[in-house]
C-alpha cells in the first residue's frame, strides 16, 4: 500500500480522469495538482516526468521511494500502487 499518491492533471485531460477512476476503484486516495488552476507547478511535473504531458502520477512507497507513471499506463500503474 503506497504512503502517498499525487496526480498532476489538467481540466481537459481524459486520461487523467481514467487514472483517477482507476485509483478510486482500487480504494486509493490521492492528491491532485491541477495545472490549469496551478500553472506554476508545470515545471515540477516536467522535472518528475521528463515529459510535457499529463497525467503524471507520483506514487510514494512506504520506504519513501518514488515511482513516476506518465500517462494512463495500467501496466506500470497497477504494480506501482500494489
Amino acid at each position: 500500500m503506497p504512503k502517498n499518491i499525487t496526480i498532476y492533471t489538467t481540466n481537459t485531460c481524459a486520461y487523467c480522469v481514467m487514472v483517477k477512476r482507476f485509483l478510486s476503484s482500487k480504494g486509493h486516495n490521492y492528491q491532485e495538482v491541477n495545472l490549469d488552476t496551478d500553472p506554476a507547478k508545470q515545471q515540477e511535473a516536467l522535472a518528475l516526468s521528463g515529459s510535457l504531458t499529463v497525467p503524471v502520477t507520483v506514487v510514494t512507497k512506504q520506504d519513501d521511494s518514488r515511482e513516476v507513471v506518465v500517462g494512463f499506463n495500467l501496466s506500470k500503474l497497477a504494480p506501482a500502487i500494489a
Partner: protein
Amino acid sequence: MSSEKKAIDLIMVGAGPAALAAAIYTTREDIETVLIEKAIPGGLAAVTDWVDNYPGFPKGISGLDLAENLRAQAERFGAQIEMGEVTGIKRQGKHVAVETTDGTKLARAVLIATGTDWKKIGVPGEQEFYARGVHYCATCDGAFYRDKKLVVVGGGNSAVQEALFLTRFASHIDLLVRSTFKASDVLLHELEKNKKITVHLGTTTDEIVGENGKVNKVIGTHKGKKVEFETDGVFVFVGLKPNTQFLKNSSIDLDEIGFIKTNAKLESSIPGVFVAGDVRHGATMQIASAVGEGATAALHIREYLEGTPQPSY
C-alpha cells in the same frame, strides 16, 4: 466441477463510440457483452476538445463528456468494460477466440471497433521530441504551452479544431497545411476570426529542430523555398490510421491501408466477427456515423446469435 470454458455471448474489441453504442443495444437484449479497451473508453472522441456536430447537443458537448455519457449509458444496461489488450482473433470451432494479454477468451460473436489513431508525419525530430515538444493530443498537453508559440500541422477538421483549442494557451500558432483545407466551413469561419493563428497553405513540414531537449523551430517548404517557423512545440493532426496491427496474423480481410473490409451486414471475412466505426473500410470518421454503425452492427449480431445455438466445450 466442469473444466469447460464458457463462451461470452459477445466480446467487443475497443470501447469507443461505435462499441459503446452497440453495447447499449446488445445489453438491452440481454446479450452478455464484454468490451476490452486498451487505452480509454470513448477512444479519440474522449480526447477531442469539443464536438459540435453530434446530433442532440444544440450547444455542442466536450468529447470527454460525450464519452462519459456513452459509457455510463452502456454500463447502466450491464455492459462490462475491461482494461486490456487484444493481440489476436481467430475462429475456433463454433466460437471466436479472442487472444489478450491476460489469456484467451471465447465468444459466440465479436465486434471489432478499435477505431483509429493519429498518423505521424514521419520527419526528422518527430520521434526524438515526442512528448517533449511534439504532441498528438491538444487536450492532454496544451496546458504546457501557456504564452508560448506553437506550430500545428494539418488541414482537416481535427487540425483546425485543435488549433482553435490551443489558442486558450498559446500566444501564437502557425498552422501548416500541406495543400489546402479539408476542414468544414464552420471551422474555417472560426479560424478566420481568430487573430492568434496564422495559416500557411501549401506548406510542407520537413523537420522539427531543437536543442537541449527542447523544440525551437520547424523547417518546411513553401513554393519550393525553405521556410522556418520559430516555435516551442508542435501539435500534429495529419490524418488517421486504423488500429488493426493486432490482426496482422489473422485471416481477416483488410484493405491496402489496413482498414477492415465488411459485407452489408458489417460482418468481416471471419464469420461471427463484425466491425463498426472508424476502423471499418469505408468509414466516414464521424462520431455520429460510428454510433450509427454500432447500432446497426448490434442488430446484425443479435440476428447472428439467434441463428447460432449456444455450443458447449
